[in-house]
């Protein structure tokens, strides 16, 4: 798959921002106006509508003006690793209510280190587990409880 050129990428982004602004504008029209605000010069809808129009106008200008010719410079970019890191973040968000802070954190850190190239157990395990436990202990000392999820029962 070939990546878009700089000009194409700029136009795609401008289009995305235009669509975002139009969606925001449409959402603004749907904001209910209480009866008490009917005669008021300014309601909950006013600012969003103004911003939506402004955003759409600016994005439209970005779309039609000549795009920058500066290279995006994506040669050699590590897309796979970055996608992996994002997946790990998603995994962290999904797992933390169930596995608790310490286990989820250790898994995230260990997975991140391994993904980016640090696979020596002598480094990976102590740092991942040490940082997770260390932070848990620090916050515990500060009076902030970070739960252990399903492991709560195991720990009593």
């Amino acid at each position, binding site marked *: 798959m070939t990546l878009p050129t700089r000009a194409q990428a700029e136009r795609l982004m401008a289009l995305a921002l235009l669509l975002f602004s139009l969606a*925001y504008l449409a959402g603004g029209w749907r*904001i209910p106006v209480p009866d008490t605000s009917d005669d008021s010069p300014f309601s909950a809808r006013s600012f*969003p509508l103004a911003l939506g129009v402004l955003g759409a106008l600016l994005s439209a200008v970005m779309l039609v003006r000549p795009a920058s010719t500066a290279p995006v410079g*994506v040669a050699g*970019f590590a897309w796979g690793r970055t996608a992996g*890191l994002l997946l790990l*973040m998603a995994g962290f*968000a999904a797992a933390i209510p169930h596995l608790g802070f310490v286990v989820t954190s250790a898994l*995230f850190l260990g997975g991140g280190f391994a993904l980016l190239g640090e696979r020596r157990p002598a480094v990976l395990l102590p740092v991942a587990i040490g940082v997770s436990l260390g932070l848990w202990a620090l916050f515990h000392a500060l009076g902030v409880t970070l739960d252990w999820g399903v492991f709560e029962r195991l720990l009593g």
Partner: protein
Amino acid sequence: MIEGLLLGLQGIATPVNLALLVMGCLLGTFIGMLPGLGPVTAVSLLIPLVLTMPPASGMVLLAAIYYGAMFGGSTASVLINAPGESSSVPTTFDGYPMARRGEAGRALALCAWGSFVGGTVATVLLMLSAPLLAGWAVGFQAPEYFALMVLGLTAVAAFTDGGGALKAVLMTVVGLMLATVGTDIADGVERYTFGVADLADGLSFVLLAMAAFALSESLLAALRNEKVSDEARRAARGDVGTLKLTGADAKEVAPAVARSSVLGFVVGVLPGAGATIAAFMSYAVERNLARGARRAEFGKGSRRGVVAPETANNAAAGGAYVPLLTLGIPGSGTTAVILGALVALGVQPGPRLYIEQSGLFWTVVVSMYIGNLILLVINLPLIPWIARTLAIPEPILAPLIQFFCLVGVYLVSFNSFDLWLMAGLAVVCLALRLLDYPMAPLLLGFVLGKLLEENLRRALLVNDGSFAFLWQRPVTAVLMLASIACLLAPALAAWWRRRRPAAP
């Protein structure tokens, strides 16, 4: 003023606040030293910690982190030619050549002393000017505040680095849009929440700051596959040479330090101008003022070339606190993040802060004095040790930064929704940054959005729905004209550059 200083000393002279000051300076230096992570990232990463504290302690820690990170950024500039952020770029012009000829320690000492003097002068000028400005601004009403915020937003957009003013203004508008998410206080209706209970109170400032700065920066570094450079490895061995300055050094740089302190402070006070412009301007001024051999040294290891931008950027950091504390208008990305943190701490910066919470104001002022001293006395000798962090391998550093972002957001709300939202926003911010869309206007728009809307609403209500207040009130009219000038300035500058005849 003496009473104020004593009040500030009373506020700072607790073991906790002093410990926070030292910790903030060290942490800020450590984070600011890491390539790509400047004061904005340092402040945004440590906000979750700041929010657990009482307002005075939180403000002390924020100021210490800011100054510490500025100092750390200059360390990276000198040692490895990789400035922590844009205001440290001019320091590389002469700091790195000095390091290459074995004078890294002297260059770092020049940076430290320059930062100390610049920061101290700025604190004195802040102390003198803030009461005057607060006294003048206490009569401001909704129209003046509205116009002042518009000026702050347009100035930051007009002077922001890279990408162009149009992209910056668009990011400001997007930030304002994001600020409307949540419940409208005046009418009590929900806006853009899509029925999600977690959005009823709006987007979290910490979440957006992390996504826009620390997290997207870390993802960008992973994307670019940045490795630890040979310079970083050498610097991490801690061999920087002597950290002492001679009498001849002091005599040589004294005039540059004096000029750069005042220039930096004045530039820092202007909304939008900030430390970067101050640093570049002072370097240019010193190079233009130098004659003969002194001028030829610039770019090859000139002591004035190192000290001028460092003095100016620290003075500008102090200057940026003037509009922040007295008017509630941040002048840059970093002070926008600090403003968000202050509001989250329950502190509303503005003229009322100086009048009604003067203890808080003076505590921050005194903490800046002491913070500058700590940077000189503690941080400078520790540089050879702190420099070892430059060689932390990327496979360890990147996940750690991302982890601290996740934890920081999790600690605010303890729910997964915010984590998902932050990850999603980080991807969007990453895409925007790849195309040179600046993040500082986005965050500034978000931080000021609710206040801007509220002041506009009040101004229109008082004026029966008429916008005439924009030109009928003198202060408002002047501020709006200044905003228009800021918006036109980049286009005029570009037109002027095109008109100039090309060099033969």
